[in-house]
């Protein structure tokens, strides 16, 4: 049985319908990538799962439970942590305080603690008393990922973590993924960077205009198929 799934998920971005019946599944320990161009509905999908957008209860299921209508704080308490698009560090909080916010509500024993997060991203330990916003973009992204890990989540949702970062920085951040996966967390990676997504994911969903247009294992998908699913087939 899958750990997290959406069933016929529809979603609106204001008055605009952004999702038209999306079905995706995530198994325990699996990493899934969701790729697609701007406006494909990726962020609406993430916001529906994390509870920022309230849905019909049955549209999102986690561990056999209907969570579509739960508020975000309760969904996080169940074990779905978010690395939000744009990092969203709290500017009034220091790096360490930002990390501590990750386990504000969900305090479960697990592989992740301040020490292990600092082990994963050593630079954060040096900077721990600085305001989160004094860091470079890549370091801020590390704080945002560390903050999500602090809750020892069962599912980690990463929304556009490479957005606005230099390729070398993106590589650094993705270098942490094997360690995150080793701890057993399931991961959903939302990316515009197709190459990066194919490298880390066990399975890929490609979205276009609010629908899943292609899915499968990276090795089974040809460049043409992805190109067509991403941009639409040439008429």
């Amino acid at each position, binding site marked *: 049985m899958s750990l997290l799934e959406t069933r016929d998920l529809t979603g609106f971005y204001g008055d605009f319908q952004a999702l038209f019946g999306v079905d995706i599944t995530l198994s325990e320990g699996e990493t899934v990538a969701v790729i697609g161009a701007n406006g494909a509905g990726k962020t609406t999908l993430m916001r529906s799962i*994390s*509870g*920022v957008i309230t849905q019909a209860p049955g549209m999102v299921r986690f561990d056999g439970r209907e969570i579509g209508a739960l*508020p*975000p*704080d309760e969904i*996080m*308490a169940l074990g779905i*942590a*978010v690395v*939000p698009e744009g990092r*969203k560090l*709290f*500017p*009034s*909080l220091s790096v360490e*305080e930002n990390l*501590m*916010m*990750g386990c*504000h*509500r*969900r305090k479960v024993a697990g592989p992740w603690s301040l020490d292990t997060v600092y082990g994963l991203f050593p630079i954060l330990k040096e900077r721990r008393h600085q305001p989160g916003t004094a860091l470079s973009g890549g370091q801020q992204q590390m704080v945002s990922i560390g*903050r999500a890990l602090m*809750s020892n989540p069962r599912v980690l949702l990463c929304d556009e973590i490479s957005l606005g970062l230099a390729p070398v920085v993106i590589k650094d951040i993705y270098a942490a993924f094997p360690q995150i996966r080793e701890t057993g967390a399931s991961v959903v990676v939302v990316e515009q960077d197709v190459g990066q997504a194919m490298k880390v994911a066990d399975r890929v969903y490609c979205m276009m205009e609010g629908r899943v247009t292609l899915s499968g294992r990276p090795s089974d998908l040809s460049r043409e198929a992805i190109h067509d699913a991403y941009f639409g087939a040439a008429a």
Partner: protein
Amino acid sequence: MIWVDTVLQGVLLGGLYALFALGLSLVFGIMRLVNLAHGDLIVLAAYLILMLVTLLGLGPFVAALIALPVMFAVGWVLQRLVLNRVLGPDILPPLLVTFGLSVVLQNALQEGFSADSRRIPAGWLETASVPVGPISLGVMPLLTFGSAILVTLALQFVFYRTALGRAFRATSDDPVTASLMGVKPASVFAMATGIAMVVVTIAALYLGTRANFDPTTGPARLIYAFEAVIIGGLGSLWGTLAGGIIIGVAQTVGAKINPEWQILAGHVAFLVVLLVRPRGLFPRAFD
């Protein structure tokens, strides 16, 4: 020497204004809510203490101690049932609701306690003083000022050293992301207003023992509180204390020059600070 005395009395008076203002500063800092009923809530707490003193024969400090949890509950319920419903991107609804609350409180107090001005009796403490060289300082003003410093320290501790304070600051920065961290903004706001009402009760104790109050005293206290918050810089607790002291000193110095100028001098000092430092003395780095 007489001027040293005047300034010192002003500083002590400033402690009272800071106590009026700290609750307002706390609530504004966390949820950008301007509570126009803040002054009336101080008066409500003063009547509550007065009732406990007159009905149960308690001392004012014991009565205030009992009033603290009651007012915390009042604040918590007020936030949960009323204010949380109107908080949002638009700042007008909460302004209107707290303005309405102010009218309701004043009229309810008038119904219940009549328009007579009242005072919380503090016995011998009312006139007790300690001589410091040639100057004598009242015990009640000293207690007021000491309480203002203690309240500022305590709030500062809660804000910067506890998980609750971390949640306060995170929610103030970004409620949506805070909720993704498991924070329930509605509960955080209810806690904040509850704590603000605890500060209000302490302010009410010293307001009620220092001077007469009646059901319509609130709005005038609210003006001093606003001025203290704005002089200090929005959201800064130490700034709020400093703002209270500046208004207090301006008032006593103004009164010394001409008794008619007491209130005016406080407002003039406020305007001067606004001219020189439009964002207050200790503004937050960002807003």
